[in-house]
């Protein structure tokens, strides 16, 4: 690399970081959406009667079955049919969020089932309603159990935010390509920088989730492992 290349690379970094900020915004949006919808779908699958729970299973099948790139196109162009003014950013959050909700629902469903019916029965036996039992007994335990598998999903959706470039969101991947387009000598180094960004974010995210897990670990469980108490 020449001195000019180096200079271009360094000059490109602030622009890359602004792009990365967009990835983070997509990330938070899609995780929030995926979390809320994912829990809802999991609760419906576990606790709802047949027709509704079958619908939830169908939902999960759809959003896990369609390739992400195709989903992005479907949502972006699909929504634009009805509502002008939907931005690529919003479309990306919705598409990636709904896709993630299907995966997250699997995590939560497994965790809710691992908590077990007996906890629900004990909660009902003191006079709580189902919703109270879910809110105060089932979810606090299920969410704890969800953290390790959820950190996988986190790493995966973090990387998926770059797919938003396919529908025109100007995020880090797109910015890197702009920079590369102006100076092809930077092709390899610029993507190495992008790779480093993501490695760092994955590390930081998993570290935070690990801290969360330790923070909410239930005393007395350490030696016995997660899951059922017995």
């Amino acid at each position: 690399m020449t001195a000019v290349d180096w200079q271009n690379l360094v000059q490109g970094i602030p622009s890359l970081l602004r792009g990365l900020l967009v990835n983070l915004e997509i990330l938070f949006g899609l995780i929030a959406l995926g979390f809320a919808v994912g829990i809802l779908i999991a609760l419906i699958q576990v606790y709802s009667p047949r027709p509704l729970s079958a619908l939830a299973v169908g939902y999960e099948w759809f959003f896990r079955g369609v390739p992400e790139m195709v989903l992005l196109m479907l949502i972006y162009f699909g929504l634009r049919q009805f509502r002008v003014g939907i931005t690529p950013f919003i479309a990306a959050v919705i598409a990636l969020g709904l896709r993630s909700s299907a995966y997250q629902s699997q995590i939560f469903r497994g965790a809710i089932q691992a908590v077990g019916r007996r906890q629900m029965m004990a909660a009902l036996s003191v006079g709580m309603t189902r919703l109270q039992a879910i809110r105060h007994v089932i979810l606090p335990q299920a969410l704890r159990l969800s953290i390790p598998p959820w950190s996988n999903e986190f790493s995966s959706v973090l990387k998926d935010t770059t797919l938003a470039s396919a529908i025109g969101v100007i995020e880090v991947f797109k910015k890197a390509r702009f920079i590369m387009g102006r100076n092809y000598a930077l092709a390899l180094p610029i993507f190495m920088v992008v790779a480093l960004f993501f490695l760092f974010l994955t590390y930081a995210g998993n570290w935070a989730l690990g801290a969360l897990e330790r923070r909410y670990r239930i005393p007395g469980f350490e030696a016995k492992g997660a899951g059922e108490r017995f």
Partner: protein
Amino acid sequence: MALLVVEDLHKRYGKEEVLRGVSFVLERGETKVIIGPSGTGKSTLLRCINRLTEPDRGRIWLNGVEVTSPRTNIYKIRAQIGFVFQDFNLFTHLTALDNVRLGLIRVKGMGKREATERAMRELERVGLGDKADAYPAQLSGGQQQRVSIARALAMDPKLILFDEPTSALDPELIGEVLQVMIELAEGGMTMLVVTHEMGFARSVADEIIFMEKGVIVEQGPPEVLFTNPRVPRTAEFLRKITEFYGESG
């Protein structure tokens, strides 16, 4: 008026008829013990009484209120019926204190201070005042079961249902749980207890109900059932479990 009236209770799971017409009454302050072979429907019966399981047919009254009526607020009923499970079923993520407090706060709508005081009193009553901050996984089986009794007691139940409260416990821990139950019975609590602790049944129960294959075969005071049962099958069963479990407890 009896505190609990159970009339012609039926329940089937698929093809299997688990309860086939069970009727009995429980007077205020009475302790009745239910015995019977495995798979006879004892647990199902208890769960039907507070409708954790919906019975198919039959009626139940608690204190004159029909539990089985669709118009009854079942949550109100459940709050008045304590349930002690075979495997404790404490809320795993909560301390002993919070286990006892949760129902007070969420169901009874009690303030935190008042609920804490009440919960502490119940923990002390079962001898666990010093374990308020322990989590279930940090307690022995016997201690967990006593916390679960405190959890039931805190709600001021009119009746407590016990489903084999000592059968998941190591022998040396059974006594401490039975001791709490004996004190409750002596204090006038109304209790319906599924157990094979014959020592407890003999000394505490006002009546023993012998169930088999979904029906009550015979019921009566322990003296009568042990010495002079009407049905030969009762004598045979009592002899078997006394040999198996012994007289202790």
